[in-house]
Each structure stands twice: as C-alpha cells, then as structure tokens.
C-alpha cells in the first residue's frame, strides 16, 4: 500500500513564548510519522533551535511577524521546513567556534546551528534575503 504524503503547517507569532507550541506540534507529528522516541526528541530540539533563531535573528523579537513550520511525511522520511521572511543570512559565513572558545569569550550563544546539523539527517538552507528564508531538515524513518 503506497502511503500518501501527509502535509501539515503551523503559523505562529514570532515570540519565544510560542516555542512550546511548536515543540508539541512537531513531536506529535514525529510520533505519527513513526519516529522512535529518541528521534522525536532530536526533532523537537532541532526545530526549537531553528525557530528560536528565526524569532531572535530573522525578526529581532518582532511579535507582528510570523514563523511557519511545515511538516511533510511519507513512510520513509519526515521533512520539516522552517520559514521566515526576515533579513536572511549566509549560513556558510557563520563561524563554528569550539566550546572552549565560546566559554573563554563568555558567549551564551553559538550552539544552535551545530545542534541542528548533528540532530537531523539532512539540512540545507534556501535563502532569498528580504523575501523568504527556508531551513529544510529531514529525518529518515527507521522501520522497526
């Protein structure tokens, strides 16, 4: 039986208070898609990091802006797209500093992108600055 693609989307105001709602949304979809508990936890964290970046960096905490989280799954793969229409950035120019370096500089940030890369199976950005920025993330669904 071929499984149809299931498509979901969630649109919320750009505020960190909505991160809990976003996490519930992706964890419920992740479980429906058949991810293991441990993969659901990875998905939850990766999407939280992606959305926190949008709220903080793309929109500078402007509550009138909207964060979009799309989810699509079939029997093999769960794909998540986090969209914003904010200022955009060049992911390749972001310097990945060692934890030791960040500590020495008393930094409180700089961990999000590496978490996303580590937690998800495929990650890429599609950026059209000022128009639309999309972070695409995939998690393969392991058959149990």
């Amino acid at each position, binding site marked *: 039986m071929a499984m149809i693609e299931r498509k979901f989307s969630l649109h919320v105001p750009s505020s*960190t208070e909505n*991160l809990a709602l976003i*996490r519930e949304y992706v964890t419920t979809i992740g479980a429906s898609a058949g991810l293991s508990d441990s993969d659901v936890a990875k998905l*939850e964290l990766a999407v939280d990091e992606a959305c*926190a970046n949008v709220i903080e960096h793309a929109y500078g905490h402007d509550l009138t802006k909207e964060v979009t989280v799309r989810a699509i799954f079939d029997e093999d793969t769960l794909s998540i797209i986090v969209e914003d229409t904010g200022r955009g950035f060049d992911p390749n120019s972001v310097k990945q500093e060692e*934890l*030791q370096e960040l500590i020495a500089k*008393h930094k409180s940030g700089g961990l999000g992108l590496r978490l996303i890369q580590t937690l998800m199976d495929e990650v890429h950005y599609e950026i059209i600055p000022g128009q639309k920025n999309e972070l695409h993330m995939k998690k393969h669904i392991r058959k149990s």
Partner: protein
Amino acid sequence: MPNPFVLNTTNREDLSIMSIEGYLDAHTAPQFEEKLQAEIEAGRTRIVVDCSKLSYISSAGLGVFMSFIEEIREHSGDIKISGLAPKVRHTFEILGFHDIFDLLDDVQAAVKRFEDKPTREV
C-alpha cells in the same frame, strides 16, 4: 501554562542549590540567567544546579551555563549539575558539556564533589 518553568534557590552554608523545573528554552533561559547572575554578584560561586525535574533544555539553556562558568571558576567556585534525565543529559553530551562540567547523579553527590574538587580548570 504552555511553558512551565520553576526556579528555586536554597542557600546552604557556602553552597547555593538552584533547582530548575520544566522547560529551559529561549523563553525561560533569561530567568535562569538573571538568578545565576544574582548569585555571582552576591559572591556565591559554589553552585549546584539540580535538574532532576528539568524535562527539556535547548541551547539557550546550555548557553547560560557556558557564559558564566569561566567567571565562576576564576573565583575558585564551580557549577555542579545534578540529576539530569537521560533525554536532557543527551543534549549536554551532544555539545561536549560533560567534558567541561561535573554531572552528578543527585544533589548529595554534587555537594560531596564540592568537598573533593571545589573548582576545575576551564
């Protein structure tokens, strides 16, 4: 409430025991940061953070630990972290925090570690 977060601080002799509960994410991390800052400003740099009721942490929460640890160790203090649930511990480990911080099973073990090893090199 969609984002429950509770923070309690107990001062016990020369130790501060901060217990954090619920979700430590970009929304709640500023509250934790503020309280940790206040402890340091009050000269209290021997801190146990009891995470036994912490159900979730994101990089915003980890960032609070990261940004204060050097200053605290420069004052011969430390942050010992206790009671991490497996899911939360995993997030600490992915980023290598277990190499930098003492992670203990419970508050008692964390208090004991302060006796054996009051501070660490960063």
